[in-house]
């Protein structure tokens, strides 16, 4: 009879969401859930308990949105199941509550089988406190927004504490190539599965500076890497305590997206699907025409030219964006958009950990709240002191995009590499409408 009590917060949330949509107020994906959760903290576990299949949680610094979308696509197309998911970015508890409430009918019943939710680093332990998921996917841990999340080691500690209570019928899917993520599988009651790359053709020749876990998560000695795919992801072992990269359950697939980081996202999603009993041919079929979310590389036609947006929100993400855009042939114009709002992190120091020296001979425009900081970083990445022929600084984002499109010749692509809030602004400008 508990249910009756939840109807008020559910109606409240639905009304707020409808009003927010009607007047295009934004924040429609978090605010309703926030209000409902304020009314009754138990609403989340009650809503989740209605999902017959269960919940899949996806966490990690980079790749949450793409991996979640792949899992969702496989469940919907491969298994023909109804899925509730949170929108990209709405990855705190209020975002999960919002998405669940939007899936309820007027009696508060959810018409879906599965919940696929991406959660941010700090939210994972909170979510595990509220309910027990079927699967937890942990992708990676890189330095990101140190002013907000704290340091990588600290997050890993909190995660392990939260995972240790999960029961045997829960599956934990871990990236074997990230030492700290792999070590999270230690001493768990839940079943642990690993994915990792085994492809010597994409191993890096040189270590990148932005490595966050180059020391043994167990004994703190320096790790040995036989090969690195990027940052600190690779084939590692500790010569001191003999801890080593676990054997993996999945190491290759017919990847639907370019970029090494997308290989990891795909492996994670496919491994989850296999655990849930989806057949390989169903997985392949589902991912055949997979479209990434906005800001994850898809091509957009604007005024007869092409734009590709690659969300680049931390050193490792940025390095991988640069590596990926270097794989595309031809002359390039690159627009770097650096914001310092709360979702980006207020501290922009991290851009000095990005290897902009790898950008090669491209035309560069910088923009965003911290357009000058980004311009200065590029100045110090160039060979010559004369930066002004290579870099243009445009504080106004709209003008910067316009300038970029003009600079890009016919059949050329403008590559936009924005931080998180900058990506939303880019999307708004390109689409010509408000987006959240």
């Amino acid at each position, binding site marked *: 009879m508990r249910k009756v009590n939840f109807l008020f917060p559910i109606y409240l949330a639905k009304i707020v969401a409808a009003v927010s949509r009607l007047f295009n107020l934004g924040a429609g994906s978090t605010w309703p859930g926030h209000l409902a959760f304020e009314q009754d903290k138990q609403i989340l576990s009650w809503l989740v308990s209605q999902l017959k299949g269960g919940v899949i949680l996806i966490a990690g610094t980079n790749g949450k949105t793409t991996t979640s979308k792949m899992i969702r696509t496989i469940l919907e197309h491969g298994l023909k199941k109804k899925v509730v998911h949170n929108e990209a970015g709405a990855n705190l508890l209020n975002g999960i509550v919002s998405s669940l409430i939007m899936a309820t009918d007027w009696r508060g019943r959810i018409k879906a089988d599965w919940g696929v939710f991406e959660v941010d680093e700090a939210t994972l332990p909170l979510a595990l406190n509220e309910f027990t998921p079927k699967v937890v996917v942990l992708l990676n841990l890189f*330095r990101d927004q140190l002013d907000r999340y704290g340091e990588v080691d600290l997050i890993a500690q909190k995660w392990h504490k939260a995972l240790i209570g999960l029961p045997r019928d829960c599956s934990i899917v871990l990236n074997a190539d990230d030492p700290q993520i792999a070590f999270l599988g230690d001493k768990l009651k839940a079943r642990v599965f690993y994915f990792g790359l085994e492809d010597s053709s994409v191993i890096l020749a040189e270590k990148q500076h932005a490595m966050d876990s180059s020391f043994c998560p167990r004994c*703190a000695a320096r790790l040995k890497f036989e090969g690195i795919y990027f940052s600190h992801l690779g084939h590692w072992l500790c010569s001191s305590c003999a801890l080593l990269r676990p054997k993996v359950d999945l190491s290759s697939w017919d990847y639907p997206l370019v970029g090494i980081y997308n290989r990891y996202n795909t492996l994670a999603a496919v491994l989850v699907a296999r655990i849930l009993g989806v057949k390989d041919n169903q997985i392949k079929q589902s991912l055949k025409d997979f479209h990434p979310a906005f800001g994850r590389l898809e091509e957009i036609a604007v005024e007869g030219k092409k734009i590709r947006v690659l969300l680049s929100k931390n050193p490792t993400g940025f390095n991988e964006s640069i590596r990926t855009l270097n794989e595309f042939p031809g002359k390039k114009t690159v627009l770097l958009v650096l914001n310092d709002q709360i979702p980006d992190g*207020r501290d922009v120091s991290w851009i000095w950990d990005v290897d902009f020296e790898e950008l090669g001979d491209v035309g560069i425009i910088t923009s965003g709240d911290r357009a000058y900081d980004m311009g200065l970083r590029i100045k110090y990445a160039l060979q010559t002191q004369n930066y002004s022929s290579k870099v243009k600084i445009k504080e106004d984002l709209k003008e910067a995009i316009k300038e970029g499109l003009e600079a890009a010749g016919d059949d050329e692509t403008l590559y936009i590499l924005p931080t998180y809030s900058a990506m939303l602004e880019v999307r708004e400008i390109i689409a010509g409408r408000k987006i959240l």
Partner: protein
Amino acid sequence: MSKRLKTNDHKLTIGWLYPDLMSTYGDRGNVICLRKRAEWRGIEVVIKEITLETSEKELENCDLLFMGGAQDRQQKIASDDLRKNKGPVIKKMVEGGVPTLFVCAAYQFMGHFYRPAEGEDIPGLGLFDLHTIHPGSDKPRCIGNVVVKTTTSYLVGFENHGGRTYLGKKVEPLGEVVVGYGNNGGDKSEGAVYKNAFGTYLHGPVLPKNPHFADLLLKLALEKKYGKAELVELDDSLEWQTHKFIVKKLGVGV
């Protein structure tokens, strides 16, 4: 530029302490900045990465030292090595006038001790007459943009530290905070200076946006090595634009 110094035959070795351990906050930018600003003036630069395996002899041969911030676990690995091996050498170099820059965790470690929220005091190198106390994990960290007024100029940066640092009598502050917490959020002091050793909480990183500070370090290093040094002026309009943008953003009228 009348007094253009012939710098073609000049060479600086910049020692970067623990780049793989003590470099979590973009502080690598300080090394990039020092290198570029020297190279643009025709000074040859060697960046010597000094880590656990590096000998003290190689450390001694450096003309300028830099060390940045880190995660706690990595900091512990570095501090063990510092206390046992490299610390005494660094101390001797600082006493001899070698310019050094210590940021955040490295700055704290150069004091007498660090008192964590729980557990025993962690002894430091005692290079600066100061100590740091962590007031407890329930107390807020000092996080945000900073503007510091020094005796001759302003510095801008970003701070992010839990520990509060208190200066002793034998050390001068680097400056006074106009915006931000600085050493301890109480007495307005920021950073510390002893001989040619500078300690600060400023990330940002601090040097690219404060080119006068970068040049001061280079000048001190050249003077120590070659006697007299006059740095050729560079076009720093973008550096100062970035600097002023932050000052303006924070609403400081300087």
